[in-house]
């Protein structure tokens, strides 16, 4: 959330609570069930063994009062009928597997906080505690998350056994499921079989989190209102648990295959994977309560931070409705906060609203078209989300145990499970930054499974009917999400990814989803702007490095860089020995909004070996550098491994004899003197000309390609939510002062060697794309408008190339 002035916050709070009141009192979607308001003493002996009491919903809903005070007596909203909790002596439970496999004895447990070593113990085998206590919050969290865990396990077991049935290969099965055969034998259905530990009363002011490294959920309370706990609001807990099960789904295939690595639900403060995930988590909450908003008590009442999930909700600004013209369309509403409609805020939660609103609309469509109950329809959506995440997060690359590829060992997604030269799995780079989840490929995947399960082959899985694909395409389009031309059933394999069955989207259904040519993204060339921003203030950069490192976002920083960043001088230029942040001043030269802009500074295939010396290829769209300026010699006719026109199929890892001459190269080249002329060359060429010891390269003697300037892994990609027509990102997302706020997701971090000779000129060749781009995902030369193959993201074609040229100043 953006920074707001106190007056602003008060005004918004008044507006929101007023609106909320209107909503509740009118009996709308947020309509409350007013309780009898007779306090129920939740004493131990008032319940039978194994029982306790829960707040059946959050206090706002139970009271029907949007202005309920933090000090309200919540015991008034307990019902006298006790709730079954568990017969176990501790607040913990087992989970059934499938048949004899996959049972988890210690599946989940609830503790007070991270300082508490064991789950809560029953008192006289009972779970009733006064509503103001931490014990009550723990029981409440257990009871509500148990409901979702039971639903989740029942759903996954049903998919595994009957619907997706991975043990039955096509053609006996009707589609290729991403759910692995070894789901239960490896306990991949529950992140390898760990116990999910839920901390119901965490020391986390006004916050909640999910930590996959120890498989925990943490629910905090408010410093100003310590009696208000997130664990009193089931909708907040279901949202957070939704992050957990999305992470589990993304790693079904990785755990089943025994990989140690995991895919993440997001990778930056703002990225589209993260924003979609927030919308999906909002939907998980909706799937449990069917309400048009979530977080009424835990987020809206005291932090002004809840969100609607349906255009009919009265929290929305005027002009938003379920009318097809007035939906929360991508990319127009990516920065929309319903409580502050005129502000533009680059935040995953707000951006995620398009996703949640689409999913609730699709649920309603299933209810109407397939005559499904709400539970049936929402279970169907959860089914499609399960398949989508299981495939998108697949680091094995196979997408299914019954792959679309001719050979199931051939990768059809995320390039493949091979390792790069440093031992990092290539597929992990694809999921994180090279071909990450965005609004195009997520909804393409979701649509693929919807098509294959509900429509293809005269399917009757729409509750006995065939689901009309036009419904889905038109609905996606009404949300601006029909950004793909085919369902990409044939995957991204290098050999067969552009052949085989591939359902095409009906072009006539694309009326509101706008695609823009990649050529219309540029650097801002206006006279009052710089095409780049350089950040080198020591305190800022040191704080950024420390934070990103502690969060596990960045890995290595060269030992050549001093630990206190002593060289960082804050002059806005790049100097020897600094760690610097770089942001391109991106400009949208089209008449439509561009969104999901990603800048890549990772190594890619853009050099050619010329007699043992790598030289920059100039046969790409940027035609850089000139032949007289050091470009690699032209390929001549044809293309084969080693040529500029050949993109490596293995991300440069195969080498000879499979891909002789193919390798990746860092983004930055350097100007060197060659006789009487200057040429663009590799950084190693400069090192040789300087007669510098390779030990002094940033990456040490074994890594000389980026000896002087190196993008820091993990901070070598940047995201921007959207850019309005005919303007720059900075002017699209201004803060109160009119300038943009640069967050870590907007910045590429580079380290500069202390040994760079001042005056040296570098040119960094970044690759840029955006989600609603015509050519960045669809191969225009393919007659079927199929997608680029996975390997092609190692090269130039799916991207716009933008250069950042700078001189190192001492």
């Amino acid at each position, binding site marked *: 959330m953006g920074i707001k002035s106190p007056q602003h916050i008060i005004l918004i709070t008044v507006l929101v609570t007023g609106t909320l009141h209107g909503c509740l009192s009118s009996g709308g979607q947020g309509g409350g069930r007013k309780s009898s308001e007779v306090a129920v003493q939740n004493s131990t002996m008032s319940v039978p063994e194994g029982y306790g009491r829960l707040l059946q919903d959050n206090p706002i809903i139970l009271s029907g009062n949007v202005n309920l005070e933090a000090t309200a007596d919540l015991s008034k909203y307990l019902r006298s009928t006790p709730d079954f909790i568990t017969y176990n002596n501790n607040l913990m439970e087992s989970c059934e597997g499938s048949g004899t496999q996959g049972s988890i004895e210690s599946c989940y447990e609830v503790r007070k906080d991270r300082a508490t070593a064991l789950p809560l113990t029953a008192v006289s085998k009972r779970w009733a505690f006064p509503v103001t206590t931490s014990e009550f919050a723990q029981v409440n969290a257990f009871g509500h998350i148990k409901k979702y865990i039971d639903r989740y396990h029942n759903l996954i077991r049903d998919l595994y056994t009957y619907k997706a049935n991975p043990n039955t290969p096509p053609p006996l099965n009707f589609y290729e499921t991403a759910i692995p055969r070894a789901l239960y034998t490896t306990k991949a259905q529950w992140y*390898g079989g760990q116990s999910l530990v839920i901390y119901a009363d965490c020391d986390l002011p006004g916050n909640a989190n999910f930590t996959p*490294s120890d498989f925990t959920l943490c629910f905090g309370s408010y410093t100003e209102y310590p009696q208000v706990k997130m664990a009193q609001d089931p909708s907040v807990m279901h949202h957070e648990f939704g992050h957990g099960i999305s992470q589990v789904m993304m790693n079904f295939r990785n755990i089943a295959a*025994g990989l140690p690595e995991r895919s993440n639900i997001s990778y930056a403060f703002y990225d589209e994977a993260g924003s979609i995930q927030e919308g999906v988590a909002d939907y998980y909450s909706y799937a449990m309560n069917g309400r048009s908003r979530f977080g009424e008590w835990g987020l809206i009442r005291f932090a002004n931070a809840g969100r609607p999930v349906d255009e009919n909700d009265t929290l929305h600004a005027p002009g938003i409705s379920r009318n097809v013209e007035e939906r929360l369309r991508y990319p127009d509403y990516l920065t929309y906060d319903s409580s502050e409609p005129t502000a533009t805020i680059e935040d995953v939660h707000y951006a995620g609203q398009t996703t949640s609103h689409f999913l609730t609309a699709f649920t309603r469509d299933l209810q109407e078209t397939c005559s499904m109950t709400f539970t049936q329809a929402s279970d169907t959506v959860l089914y499609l989300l399960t398949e989508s995440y299981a495939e998108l997060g697949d680091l094995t690359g196979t997408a299914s145990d019954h792959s679309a590829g001719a050979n199931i060992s051939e990768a059809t997604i995320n390039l493949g499970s091979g390792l790069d030269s440093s031992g990092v799995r290539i597929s992990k780079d694809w999921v994180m930054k090279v071909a990450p989840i965005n609004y195009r490929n997520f909804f393409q995947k979701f649509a693929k499974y919807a098509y294959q399960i509900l429509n293809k082959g005269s399917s009757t899985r729409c509750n006995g009917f065939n689901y009309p694909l036009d419904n889905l395409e038109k609905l996606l389009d009404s949300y601006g999400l029909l950004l793909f031309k085919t369902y990409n059933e044939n995957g991204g394999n290098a050999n067969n990814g552009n052949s085989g069955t591939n359902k095409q989207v009906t072009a006539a259904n694309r009326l509101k989803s706008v695609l823009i040519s990649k050529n219309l993204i540029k650097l801002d060339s206006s006279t009052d702007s710089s095409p780049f921003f350089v950040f080198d203030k020591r305190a*800022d950069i040191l704080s950024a490095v420390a*934070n990103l490192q502690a969060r*596990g976002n960045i*890995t290595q920083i060269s030992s050549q860089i001093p630990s206190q960043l002593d060289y960082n001088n804050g002059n806005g230029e790049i100097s020897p020995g600094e760690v610097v942040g770089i942001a391109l001043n991106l400009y949208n030269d089209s008449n439509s909004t561009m969104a999901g802009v990603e800048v890549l500074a990772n190594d890619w295939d853009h050099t050619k070996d010329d007699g043992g010396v790598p030289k920059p290829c100039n046969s790409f769209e940027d035609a850089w550098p000139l032949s007289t300026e050091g470009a690699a010699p032209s390929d001549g006719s044809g293309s084969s491994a080693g040529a500029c026109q050949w993109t490596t199929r293995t991300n440069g890892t195969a080498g000879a004899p499979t891909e002789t001459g193919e390798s990746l190269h860092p983004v930055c080249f350097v100007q060197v003197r060659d006789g009487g002329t200057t040429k663009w060359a590799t950084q190693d060429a400069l090192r040789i000309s300087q007669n510098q010891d390779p030990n002094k390269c940033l990456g040490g003697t074994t890594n000389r390609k980026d000896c002087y300037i190196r993008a820091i892994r993990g901070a070598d990609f940047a995201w921007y939510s959207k850019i309005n027509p005919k303007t720059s990102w900075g002017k699209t997302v201004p803060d109160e002062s009119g300038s943009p706020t640069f967050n870590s997701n907007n910045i590429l971090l580079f380290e500069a060697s202390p040994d760079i000779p001042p005056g040296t000129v570098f040119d960094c060749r970044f690759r840029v794309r955006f989600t609603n781009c015509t050519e960045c995902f669809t191969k225009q030369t393919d007659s079927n408008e199929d997608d680029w193959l996975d390997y092609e993201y190692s090269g130039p074609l799916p991207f716009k190339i933008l250069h950042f040229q700078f001189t190192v100043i001492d």
Partner: protein
Amino acid sequence: MKTDQETPKIKSSLIAGVMICGIVAGLIYWFNQESPPSHTPQQVVSPQPQSKTIVYETLEKKDKNIKRYPSTSVELKNISLHKKPDDHASPTTLKRAGRFLRGDDLERFSDEKVYLPTVNTPNPNWKEKLGHELLRFQPEGVKVALAHEQSYLSISKGKGRYMELIVVNYINPVSGNTAFRALADSETGQLIDTWDQTHSERPVQIKFTQHQD
């Protein structure tokens, strides 16, 4: 008198009877409203000390050196102790040099007789080196509680690299704790890859201010 004395007894007996009946009826009504599950209660064994519990070690920067010691209970206060992953969570059951293999051509290289050049050599001080990497940009007072989960030999293009699978917990008394899982080089302690990062609903923004002339 007798009658007068008996009447209250009868009355009180009647009242008591009515009360008992009422309580019984109430209980019957209440249990009919929401009967406890009829299945036999399934007991889950209470947590016991686990033999496979991971041992945490604290890494702390002292006078430019990294001090390593078993984590104290205070340091572990906010860290969830957990079990080591089961063996099925390893990429393969194939091993070499006592380490699980990951990467290419594992079957062949699981045979110790097949020569495998390696790009690094395990260093007994890898944890201290890792500690140096993890703490050198961190402010005073920040510590790392490290859990070692598994050792790997990673094979790519016919070359091996020794790696350690670890869980890194930053203990930061000012900005809060963070955690993630990582692969680290067994010789230099350098991080190679990371995942399983904390997903916070309201992460602290890392802001960058523009240079002003």
